[in-house]
């Protein structure tokens, strides 16, 4: 019997193999990145024409605008995550293989995470140009907030992507299920982003929202790992 360290190491290696495979396919097809990227940029552009707001007002709504766009764009990424395994019954082969269910979920979440970060970065550049927001004032904190919030969205997307993969209306069902669950995370991400877009953010508020993001990530990652065998029953 392999020890817990060996098992953990193997789980990580298998998860990275899944993520690497998904990213390699995505780099070739660009199905998710094109769809999610085009959606995010288009919505941000359209909204920049719709609202006629002062720079102060823009700063106040910036976080909400960005994270709602990221959440919607994320659904486009997550829908493809497990759907990618359906042609040729690849999901069956993975489930019948020695791959642990936890590795499969985490691997999918890592791929979701990487794709969503790319979409977010492109959107942020467009956002800076069209909304005249200087988002680079606190780069390290902003990167931290984006990483924490994006991981939370990615792990939820992977779990519910797996649960809805065999539904006929999965494109509709996935967003309907994940958005209510994402509310605490989105509130924290929005508040933290608004703080970081201001010139002198309050460190105590920043820390509070960061803690909420960390708790959300830890809880949902732990739940995903613990329930992976139940979630991925064919």
């Amino acid at each position, binding site marked *: 019997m392999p020890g817990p360290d060996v098992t953990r190491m193997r789980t990580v290696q298998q998860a990275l193999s899944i993520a690497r495979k998904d990213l390699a396919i995505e780099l*070739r097809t660009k199905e998710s990145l094109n769809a999610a990227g085009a959606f995010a940029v288009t919505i941000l552009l359209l909204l920049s024409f719709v609202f006629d707001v002062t720079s102060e007002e823009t700063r106040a709504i910036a976080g909400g605008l960005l994270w709602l766009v990221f959440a919607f764009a994320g659904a486009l990424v997550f829908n493809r995550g497990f759907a990618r395994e359906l042609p040729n019954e690849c999901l*069956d082969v993975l489930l019948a293989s020695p791959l642990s269910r936890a590795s499969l979920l985490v691997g999918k979440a890592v791929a979701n995470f990487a794709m969503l970060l790319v979409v977010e970065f492109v959107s942020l550049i467009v956002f800076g140009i069209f909304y005249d927001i200087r988002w680079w004032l606190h780069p390290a904190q902003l990167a931290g907030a984006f990483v924490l919030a994006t991981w939370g969205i990615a792990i939820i997307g992977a779990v519910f992507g797996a649960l809805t993969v065999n539904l006929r209306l999965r494109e509709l069902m996935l967003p309907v299920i994940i958005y209510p669950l994402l509310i605490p995370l989105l509130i924290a991400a929005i508040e933290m982003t608004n703080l970081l877009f201001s010139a002198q953010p309050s460190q105590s508020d920043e820390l509070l929202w960061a803690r909420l993001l960390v708790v959300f990530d830890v809880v949902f990652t732990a739940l995903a790992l613990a329930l992976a065998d139940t979630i991925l029953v064919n």
Partner: protein
Amino acid sequence: MPEAVVLEGVWKFYGDYAALRDVTLAVESGSCCALLGRNGAGKTTLLRILAGLSHIQRGQVRLMGESPRNEKARKQTGFLGHGIGVYEDLSACENLHFFARVAGVRDAKSMVSNWLDRVELGRVAAMPVRQFSRGMRQRLALARTFLHKPSVLLLDEPFTSLDDRAIAMLSELLLDARREGATIIFSTHQLREAFAIASHVALIENGRLRFTGERTPEMLEDPGLLYRRYMDSGAA
């Protein structure tokens, strides 16, 4: 010989429809069992249960002494279903490397190149699978199934889409696997090929096991014999 695969009183329902009815079957370690029967008889359901992909409502299933869903059992299983289970946007080589990593194959590089040569896909190893013919895809799927040297092979209609040369190649692969001690269970409609390879035969009709036993020389001479003798509707 110990039994590698055991099914005891297995019932499987899809809604009200009983896809498998009280199936009891034991396959000895190192033997090759051909699952025969018409479309919808329950062959695929049985193989999916053995691969841990489908739940049973009643009965017991053991694969190398473990539940098929157990990681230990999955490590020892090679499964080829109706779908070929490879990614269209990856090359043959990338597909095999990916599955080798997932299965924890040691010396993956040489194993992959060895299997690509064995299924005669070495020349097109870098080509995306979407450009492959059906036969080439099926051969890649076979390489994927055999790659991690499983001790139990579950193959659902593996001869589909293969030309005569590829059928001979698959037969050779299966015989080699048996020589190395693997247990093979495969479903097929190609009776002649099945009887040429199989050491045992199981015949299913409407979810019930009609016959199970050793493959006899008579079956080889007259492939339709089993259907005529044991099935209600007669001819193969």
